């Protein structure tokens, strides 16, 4: 009875036979890129990205690079070489409506499937969630957000608001310092993505060089071209169960051409707003004919007049 009845962690019981049976579920050691690709979901992720997002070539290219590094790192590990987790903190800059938030949402899932973050959830915050109202309020608030984001992606929208140079007693600086510390020390646990408009983010990084140098990937989101916007419009309509009637797609193309020349154009966001207004016009058009029996066709089709009624067409001479 000298042996305890329970197993003590760390101690090896001498009388337990160690079975050296190879586990059939473990794949053989990969030596080629194709082997690794077959074992992981990298390719599926890349295809899906190409398929789901219109344009954004530089962004897709960078994600492809990150995925490639993961594959090569796995091969390096198999050869016994050192493979360090790369720094994945990113900054997304670009004009309104270029898809920064959309890509950030996808990024959490992508990084999770590539195996860079453990849980793959996204915590989206703005200045209000990080910066406190009085002395001693900021640090716990920021830390709480950071703890929630561990194992996933922390997305800070409009990150330039964190730093307010005009007020030297602003608590934003404190939040930035805590962020920097965690970004540096817990690179394996958390990926931070900062997003904002290009010019303001540039001033933000200029006044916080520490932040800029800790972010490995500065991604600039280009504006969409006319064709890409049209494609985005098609996709949006598709997901809302609508479609363009005869000639309506051309009218929408013309609408975009005119709208692009006007100020305050917010890319995909403007497209979505335009489509929402067209849905309103379609609804009131159908509403007028009280006794008409509406078919599935009627309910899903956006006709040319719905688009032509826009004030964009009226404004031109």
């Amino acid at each position, binding site marked *: 009875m000298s042996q305890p009845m329970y197993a003590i962690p760390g101690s090896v019981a001498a009388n337990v036979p160690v079975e050296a049976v190879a586990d059939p579920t473990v794949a053989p050691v990969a030596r080629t890129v194709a082997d690794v690709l077959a074992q992981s979901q990298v390719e599926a992720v890349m295809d899906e990205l190409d398929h789901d997002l219109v344009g954004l070539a530089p962004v897709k290219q960078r994600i492809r690079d990150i995925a490639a590094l993961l594959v090569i790192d796995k091969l390096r590990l198999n050869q016994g070489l050192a493979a360090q987790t790369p720094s994945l903190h990113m900054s997304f800059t670009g004009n309104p409506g270029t898809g920064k938030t959309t890509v950030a949402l996808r990024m959490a899932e992508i990084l999770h499937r590539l195996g860079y973050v*453990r849980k793959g959830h996204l915590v989206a915050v703005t200045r209000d969630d990080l910066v406190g109202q009085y002395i001693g309020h900021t640090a716990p608030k920021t830390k709480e957000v*950071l*703890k*929630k984001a*561990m194992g996933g992606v922390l997305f800070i929208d409009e990150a330039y608001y964190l730093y307010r140079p005009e007020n030297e007693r602003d608590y934003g600086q404190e939040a930035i310092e805590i962020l920097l510390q965690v970004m540096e020390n*817990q690179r394996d646990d958390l990926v931070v993505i900062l997003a904002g408009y290009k010019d303001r983010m540039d001033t933000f990084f200029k006044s916080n060089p520490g932040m800029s140098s800790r972010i490995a990937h500065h991604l600039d989101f280009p504006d969409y071209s006319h064709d890409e916007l049209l494609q985005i419009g098609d996709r949006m309509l598709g997901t809302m169960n609508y479609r363009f009637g005869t000639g309506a797609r051309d009218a929408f193309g013309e609408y975009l051409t005119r709208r692009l020349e006007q100020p305050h154009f917010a890319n995909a966001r403007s497209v979505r707003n335009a489509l929402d207004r067209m849905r309103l016009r379609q609804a009131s058009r159908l509403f007028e004919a009280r006794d008409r029996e509406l078919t599935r066709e009627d309910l899903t089709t956006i006709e040319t007049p719905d688009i032509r009624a826009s004030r964009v067409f009226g404004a031109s001479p």
Partner: protein
Amino acid sequence: MMTNPAGRITQGQFSFLPDLTDAEITLQIEYGLNRGYAWSVEYTDDPHPRNTYWELFGMPMFDLKDAAGVLMELQNCRKTFPNHYIRLIAFDSTRGVESIGMSFIVNRPKVEPGFQLERQESVSRTLRYTTRGYAANAPEGERYGN
């Protein structure tokens, strides 16, 4: 105390085992998170077994997805109170339970002097027993040399 010769206090889970490593603690936290528990970190330097309510370190951590957040808070607490007892407790907010689901000690003072058994003579040969931690003689905050 024949069953506990080292004088280590035994409270909550795993307290008869050797101290858990950080990797083992992470696994336990992960288990709790998967069951929807909210973790918090507590500390004390009063080792008495009836000392049920310890001091809360920071806020209870709701809505966490990963153990790294809890571990970060724990390291923070260890840095602040290296010679205190620190435990992790998991609050189960399920309706009808609403109580502590898990609790285990993750940090101990370097030396645990143990308890004295006091016998008090009372009326008609009655003996009253009580225990008193040797460390508890010093004022709070100075009990384990810190």
